[in-house]
C-alpha cells in the first residue's frame, strides 16, 4: 500500500506542453506512473511523446480515464486549473505551481472541502510512492519502497530527510509534500490520517516549519488519533520575526508560529522532534530497530 498515488493512478498533467510540464511529466512516466493525458486548451489532438493532449480536463477524464491531476500551469491560471480538475471529477489533485494568490486558494479550498476531491499543494513537490508512482518533482532515485511515511511543508528539506533515512537502509511508503503556502489543500492531519490507515506505513515523519499553527494542531491530533510512531522536525529556529522565509506561509508573526513553540507543542504530546535532518533520521531508525544493511 501507500497513500494518494499508486499503480491505479491515471495521471493527467495540466500544462504538460510547457517546458517544465513536459520535463517532469515525462520524468513521472519514466518512473512508471501511468501518465494518460495532458491538457492544453487549443492543442487537442496533439501529443507529447505519445501522451495525448486534450482541450479540457473533462475530456481527459472521459476519453483517457484520468483519475489524478498534476497542475503545472503558471500561478495566474492555477486556481482555475484546480477547479476544472475537481469539476471534471478527478479525485486527487497535486498542484506544483508556486505563487498562487492567497485569495484564489481561499476560494478553491473552501469549494473543494465541500466535495470529495483531495488537493495536495499548491507550492509543493508532489507525492512519491516508491516503486509505484511519482506525481510531481520529487527526485525519485534516492528513495526505495519501505515503511516510513513522510509528510512535509517543504520540498528539498523532504528530500534531505528522506535521503538520510534511505542512507540508513530504510524506504518509504509515500513521501508527501503538502506545500509551503498559507492555504494548502491538505494539511499534516489529513495526510497523517492516511498514513495511519495505510498498512505499509509503520512510522511517520512530519517536517514542519515556522508560521501558522498547523504543527500545533497536528500535535493534538496525533495524541488523540495516531497509534503509529511520529517523528517531527521543524525548520526555522534561526528565523527572525516578521520576515517571510521563502515560503509565503513561513513567517513568524509576533510571538506566534515560532519553531520553538511548535517543537514544544509536539514534544508535549509525545512526538519526538529532531533538531537537524540527521537527528530526525537517527530517531526514526532507532524506533524502527536500528540501521539496516
Amino acid at each position, binding site marked *: 500500500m501507500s497513500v494518494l498515488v499508486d499503480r491505479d493512478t491515471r495521471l493527467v498533467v495540466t500544462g504538460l506542453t510547457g517546458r*517544465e510540464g513536459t520535463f517532469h511529466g515525462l520524468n513521472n512516466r519514466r518512473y512508471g506512473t501511468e501518465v494518460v493525458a495532458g491538457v492544453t486548451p487549443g492543442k487537442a489532438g496533439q501529443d507529447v511523446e505519445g501522451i495525448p493532449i486534450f482541450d479540457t480536463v473533462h475530456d481527459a477524464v472521459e476519453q483517457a480515464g484520468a483519475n489524478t491531476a498534476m497542475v503545472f500551469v503558471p500561478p495566474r491560471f492555477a486556481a482555475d486549473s484546480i477547479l476544472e480538475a475537481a469539476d471534471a471529477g478527478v479525485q486527487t489533485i497535486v498542484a506544483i505551481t508556486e505563487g498562487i*494568490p*492567497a485569495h484564489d486558494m481561499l476560494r478553491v479550498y473552501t469549494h473543494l472541502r465541500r466535495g470529495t476531491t483531495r488537493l495536495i499543494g499548491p507550492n509543493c513537490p508532489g507525492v512519491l510512492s516508491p516503486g509505484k508512482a511519482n506525481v510531481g518533482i520529487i527526485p525519485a532515485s534516492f528513495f526505495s519502497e519501505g515503511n516510513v511515511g513522510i509528510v512535509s511543508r517543504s*520540498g528539498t528539506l523532504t*528530500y534531505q530527510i528522506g535521503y538520510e533515512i534511505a542512507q540508513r537502509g530504510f524506504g518509504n511508503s509515500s513521501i508527501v509534500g503538502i506545500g509551503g503556502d498559507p492555504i494548502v489543500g491538505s494539511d499534516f492531519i489529513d495526510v497523517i490520517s492516511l498514513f495511519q490507515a495505510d498498512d505499509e506505513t509503520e512510522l511517520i515523519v512530519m517536517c514542519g516549519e515556522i508560521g501558522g499553527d498547523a504543527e500545533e494542531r497536528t500535535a493534538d491530533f496525533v495524541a488523540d488519533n495516531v497509534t503509529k510512531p511520529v517523528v517531527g522536525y521543524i525548520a*526555522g529556529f534561526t*528565523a527572525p520575526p516578521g520576515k517571510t*522565509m521563502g515560503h509565503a506561509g513561513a513567517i513568524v508573526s509576533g510571538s506566534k508560529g515560532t519553531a520553538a513553540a511548535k517543537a514544544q507543542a509536539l514534544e508535549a504530546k509525545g512526538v519526538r522532534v529532531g533538531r537537524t535532518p540527521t537527528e530526525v533520521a537517527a530517531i526514526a531508525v532507532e524506533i524502527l530497530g536500528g540501521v539496516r544493511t
Partner: protein
Amino acid sequence: MDLLEYQGKQLFARHGVPVPDGAPASSVEEAVQRARELGFPCVVKAQVQIGGRGKAGGIKVANSVEEAEEHARAILGMDIRGHTVHEVWIERASDIAAEYYASIVFDRSAKAPLLMLSTRGGMDIEAVAEEDPAAIARLHVDPLLGFQDFHARRLCFAAGVDADVVRPVGALLARLYDAFVAEEAMLVEVNPLIVTGERDVVALDAKVTLDGNALFRHPDNAKLRDPAGDDPQERMAKERGLTYVKLDGDVGILGNGAGLVMSTLDVVAQAGGRPANFLDAGGGSKAEAIVDAVEVILSDAKVKAVLFNIFGGITRCDEVARGLIEAFAQVKPTVPFVVRLNGTNEEEGRALLAEADLPNVTVEATMDGAAERVVELAA
C-alpha cells in the same frame, strides 16, 4: 507587501471606507502648502511602516502655517526605530468622541477571513487581547458566501458599539471587507476607528498588507512597492528576483527550497556559526541566478565564508556548479566557499567543480559536515 498609512487610506477611500481628507508631502514646502489647503487644525503624520509613531514624536497637530512648517521640518528625515521618514501625510484634524478598533485578517488556520471589532481602540490591541480577550469581538466569514449584514450586527452588538452608530460601523465593516477581497489583502486594520462628535464613523489610521502574489492583478498597487525602506542587499536581491533575507551573522548561505535553507541556517547555528542571510535560489535555479546570488551574498561585507547547500529536485546540480564557476570568473570572491551537492545530476555537478578546481572551494558530502566546515572557515 505593507502599505504606508496614507496609501492604505487612499485604498480604503476607493472602496467607500470613510477617511479624513488629507494629502501626502515629501518636502517641508509641500507639507505647508497641503496644510494651507486643508485648513487648521491639521495633523502632520510621519509615514513609516512601524507602530508607535505618536510616542516617537512622529504625529503632531498644527494650528497654524507656522506650526505646520515646524512639525514638517521636525518629522521629515526623522528616524523612527530604524525607519527614516521620507514622507508625511497632512490630514484635517478630527473631533474624536470614541476610539474603536476594526480589522480583517487572512486567517490561515481557519482558512477564512477573520473579522475583529473592539470598542477599546486607539491603543495597543495586542495588550487588550491579552488582558481582556472578551473586549474584542471576532468572527469568521465564509469566503464563498462573503460578508453578510448579520456579520456586522453580530460584531457590533458583541463589541458593545454605541447603539446610534451600529449602522455606520456595520456599513464601514462591509466596505472594509470589499476592500480586503477586491484588493486581495492579507490584513486590513483600522486603529483607531473613530466616532466623531457629530457621530460620523471614520478610519483614522490604516494598516494594509497586500498579497505580493496577487499584484499582477493590481498594477496600481504594485506601483506602491517602495524599495527605499529596504535594506540595500534585500533591494538588490529583489531586483534580481531572488528570495533573500538579511540576518546579522557572517556565514553567507545559499540553498534551494525555503525549507532546506531554513534548516541550513539552523544547522549552521547549531554548529556555532551565525548566518548572514537566508537565500533561496529557488526551484530550477539556472547558472545566471547563481551568479546573481553570489553577488548579493558577497555585497554584505560582513560575510566571511559561504555555504552552498543544494539538494536537487527541479534544480540540477550541474547548473548550480556551472553558476558557481561563472560567479568565480565574474566576481572573484576572496572568502572561502563550502559546497554540498546532492540530488538531480549531482555527479555531473561534482565533476564540473573538480574540473574547474576553483580556489578556496571545499566540497563536502553531508549537510552537517558542510555546516561544520563553513563555521570553521568563518571563525
